[in-house]
């Protein structure tokens, strides 16, 4: 299954905000790997640990973690919580083919 749109677009750059090594953060990082596996070079997800970079979280206005954000657009599009449902995440960020069965 290739849920990713075809074409030579530049990769979509998302940011994953986590805080330290909590169970929620670990789940989010596992989901990140699955998202990258699903999208190949069409997706890039930078991980930001807000304990290490509190300034980055403050600048972006992140209130809770894990948050997955597309900050290339204004206002930014964000998901917060558990990203294990990969299809739902791909849909939200417009990375899924319309005709792909869920």
């Amino acid at each position, binding site marked *: *299954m290739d849920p990713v749109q075809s074409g030579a677009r530049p990769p979509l750059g998302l940011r994953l905000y986590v805080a330290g090594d909590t169970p929620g953060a670990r789940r989010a990082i*596992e989901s990140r790997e699955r998202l990258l596996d699903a999208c190949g070079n069409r997706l890039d997800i930078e991980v930001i640990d807000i304990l290490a970079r509190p300034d980055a979280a403050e600048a972006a206005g992140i209130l*809770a973690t894990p948050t997955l954000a597309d900050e290339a657009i204004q*206002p930014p599009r964000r*998901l*917060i*919580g*558990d*990203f294990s449902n990969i299809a739902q995440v791909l849909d939200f960020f417009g990375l899924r083919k319309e005709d792909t069965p869920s």
Partner: protein
Amino acid sequence: MTPGSSHARDTVAETVAPHASAPDFSRSSFRLLIESSADGVLVVNLVGDVLYANPAAAEIFGKPLDVLLHVPLGRPVVSGDTAEITVHRQGGKPAQVEMRVVDIHWDGRQALLASLRDISVRRAEDERLRQSQKMEAVGRLAAGIVHDINNLLAVVTSGLRLLEKEIDRDPASPKINQLIEGMLERAQNGGALTQQLLAFSRRQPLSPEAVDLNQRISALTQMLERTLGRGVETRCVLDPALSPIHIDANQLDVAILNLAVNARDAMAGKGTLIIETSNATEDAETDSGSFVRVSIRDTGCGMSEDVLAQVFEPFFTTKGENEGTGLGLSQVYGFISQSGGHVRIDSAVGEGTAVHLLLPKKAKTEI
């Protein structure tokens, strides 16, 4: 819609009130329920802007209601029933929050209602319980290790006496070096034992990692032999093709130690303890193939059905006063469940007991 306006409040009542089934509840009753709920309630639109927040939600986020409204928080998503999130408050401690999400309509549009429960206190209590269970296990280990350290001290003491005599007899004797080397080795053995105990008792949060279970069990068995005493023969039957698992290795040690000590007591200090590992085969009750199995078998007195029904309850024990606290098996059950695994017990009076731990394999990465 302005923060806290009557329109905002009525919309909550309209959204949540079951019009037909509970006609006795007025809108204001529902408004009161939500406004005074201890759980935080947020209504968020599909792009993630906060449309409504109750006072408990404002408290969880550490922000006044009017600031929280229209904040681009993000669309809340869960997998299964709940998700755990960390809420970061300026100048305050982060809160661990359990979040539930349901679809609703708000002002005629699709939206999401997120209910938020601050579980920071519960998490801290869980952590304290885990630590006390671990310290109980450390006490058991220490009993075995103290005996060993006494033996090592006795060897070192008699070695020093021999050394004294040898120096008196012939200060250039080659035996002097041998005696010193022997005592140094014994002292290093003692140091290794206390290091194991220290590593075991260190306070640390539950932290799953990829674990080579066979290697872990082999290392633990050396310590178990001391703790269980000479009457108990320990045998390991380890599957060389075992898949790696994803679990907190320290808590797993505590669980196996607890089961081994129970086995020793069931055997009254005499019998055979067998630790087996294998890849779990198809199992109708679990996701087949996703687990590895560790079985701890003993040749002890076994358990009746009545006892079996209660073994996982905290503080349940068949041991005498000052012999057991009843926290051992509850630690095993709590830890294994929390790790996404299962515990099964096969036992019958007079036929011994086998406890099977089904432990999740390393997390899959495919969709």
